[in-house]
């Protein structure tokens, strides 16, 4: 929608920036060297009466970079609602120590456990809500399975089927190659492309780990609040819903058509406002 020279999104973003202005962010490193993790702790911006803190779990690879801005805005809105928020980078990702190729799903799941412990220490709260996007959601669910202090978990467009996820990544890499101008296909074939996805290495170990993902096998404690949020309705959405309906009667399901930020270029300045608004209400209302 266009309002004079500005779009509706520009207007909303300006409002969000004004809100962000009041926010206090504390960047820091935590964990043990040489596996220190980078985190940003957002203090609650109103009288703190919450009984749990929130840890945000990013996606991985190129999806992480593209969703960083949305996570920043999500963290600000949650902190304005009075929550303690920690967003952090997994080992080998973002600003954390290590190289991406040295990371693994097990390592990143353990990183979530480390982040939970750090958050408990900083906020003084024992219980934690995890919010994960894409692979971050999958890792959060894995971490929650072993953690007794999970109050609730939000799976935002989670990766339920590793093989399907790998196919999606391979397609995005192929689309990127097709768009590169002046590039000969023969050169592409010889440049080790299958070992990288959109600027990040895809090691045989990571590929193998990803292939094994199937969340049907994962169990969650029945008293843990669960929200599965999707941006689109598809067959995968139906399968997932029916699985969790059987195993987790308290689960909420929601489909919200909004920007698919993890696939979009940052210059488009897209913020999934509908999703952010819904998530803030969900954690505030349900708890």
């Amino acid at each position, binding site marked *: 929608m266009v309002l004079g020279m500005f779009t509706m999104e520009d207007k909303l973003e300006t409002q969000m*920036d*004004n809100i*962000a*202005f009041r*926010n206090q*962010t504390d*960047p*820091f*490193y935590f964990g043990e060297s040489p596996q*220190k993790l*980078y985190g*940003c702790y957002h203090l609650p911006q109103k009288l703190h009466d919450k009984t749990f803190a929130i840890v945000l779990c990013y996606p991985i690879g*190129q999806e992480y*970079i593209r969703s*960083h*801005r949305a996570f*920043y805005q999500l963290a600000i809105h949650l902190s304005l609602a009075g929550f303690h928020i920690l967003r952090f980078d997994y080992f080998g*990702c*973002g*600003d954390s*120590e290590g190289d*991406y190729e040295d990371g693994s799903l097990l390592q990143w799941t353990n990183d979530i456990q480390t982040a939970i412990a750090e958050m408990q220490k900083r906020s003084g709260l024992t219980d934690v809500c995890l919010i994960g996007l894409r692979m971050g959601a999958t890792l959060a669910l894995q971490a929650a399975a072993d953690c007794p202090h999970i109050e609730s978990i939000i799976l935002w467009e989670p990766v339920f089927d590793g093989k399907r996820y790998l196919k999606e990544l391979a397609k995005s890499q192929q689309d*990127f190659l*097709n*768009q*590169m*101008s*002046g*590039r*000969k*296909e023969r*050169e592409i074939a010889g*440049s*080790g*492309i299958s*070992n*990288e996805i*959109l*600027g*990040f*290495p895809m090691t045989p170990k990571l590929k193998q780990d990803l292939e094994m993902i199937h969340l049907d096998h994962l169990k969650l404690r029945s008293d843990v609040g669960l929200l599965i949020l999707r941006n689109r309705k598809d067959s995968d959405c139906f399968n997932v819903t029916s699985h969790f309906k059987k195993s987790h009667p308290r689960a909420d399901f929601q489909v919200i058509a909004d920007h698919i930020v993890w696939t979009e270029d*940052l*210059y488009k*300045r897209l913020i999934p406002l509908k999703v952010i608004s819904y998530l803030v209400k969900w954690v505030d209302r349900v708890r």
Partner: protein
Amino acid sequence: MKEYTVLFNKDRSLVGILNENLKAVVPGENSLIGVLLLNSGLIHHIGPNRIYVKIARRLAALGFVVLRFDLSGIGDSGPRKDKMPFAESVIDEVRQAMDYLEHFKGIKQFICVGVCSGATASAQISAVDHRAKKAVLINPELPRRIQIELMSHISYHKKLFDLRRWRHFLFLRSNYREIFQVIGMMIIRKIRPIYVRNSQLSEFTTETVKFLRSLRTRGVRLLMVFSEDDTEHRYFQKIIGDEYGMIQNDEFFAIEKIGNADHLFTPLACQEELLNLISKWVAEDG
């Protein structure tokens, strides 16, 4: 190697990560030179494809003190309190980063590095702050109005007779957005007076050449790195025109091209080539 967070600016709203090699502090001269990595568009301080993290660690290993930070309103940094225009706030905030390193580390010489808009900012700060001694401009971004003018000047005839491109077009694998932009520009060209676009371009060419010469006079060394197939390289050649050869042969300027690379250096092999190029050039004569 030490890697830690820093907060600076008057209200400590700018967030950065500092890399320094503690072992190199005493013996090396490089520890007296700071490297600043400037945001590429809206991408936060890890840079496109996390390349800034790799550059920072590589240069810190050589002994440089490296700061990669977010400008206000980008990444982890908060927005500005005042209404200063972006063009001015970039300069102001890069200067504050320099002030920070000068105050806490005693660093008085800087190398500014950036991709795309970060490269443009690096060039701009080099022209106004005497502490900036070198700059690495990676696919520097030209003003949008000039890009649009240039799009219609670049020849697309070669592409028109390229069978592979036609195959891509027919099998829905082309960049249709770019194609429509070019067609749109061609239509606009038809209805706009020729003298307007030519005078805009020649004015910008004069400005650019003057700008580069002023950097040379100030003793600033530049490394310009282009992705060979990226439009920015073609635009730059078009803008500089006859001066391109002169710049290539000037001891103050170096122009390098990296093949099979996109604008943001996505393929890993290109990233490695870029890293090697930067670390070699930056380390030369300190």
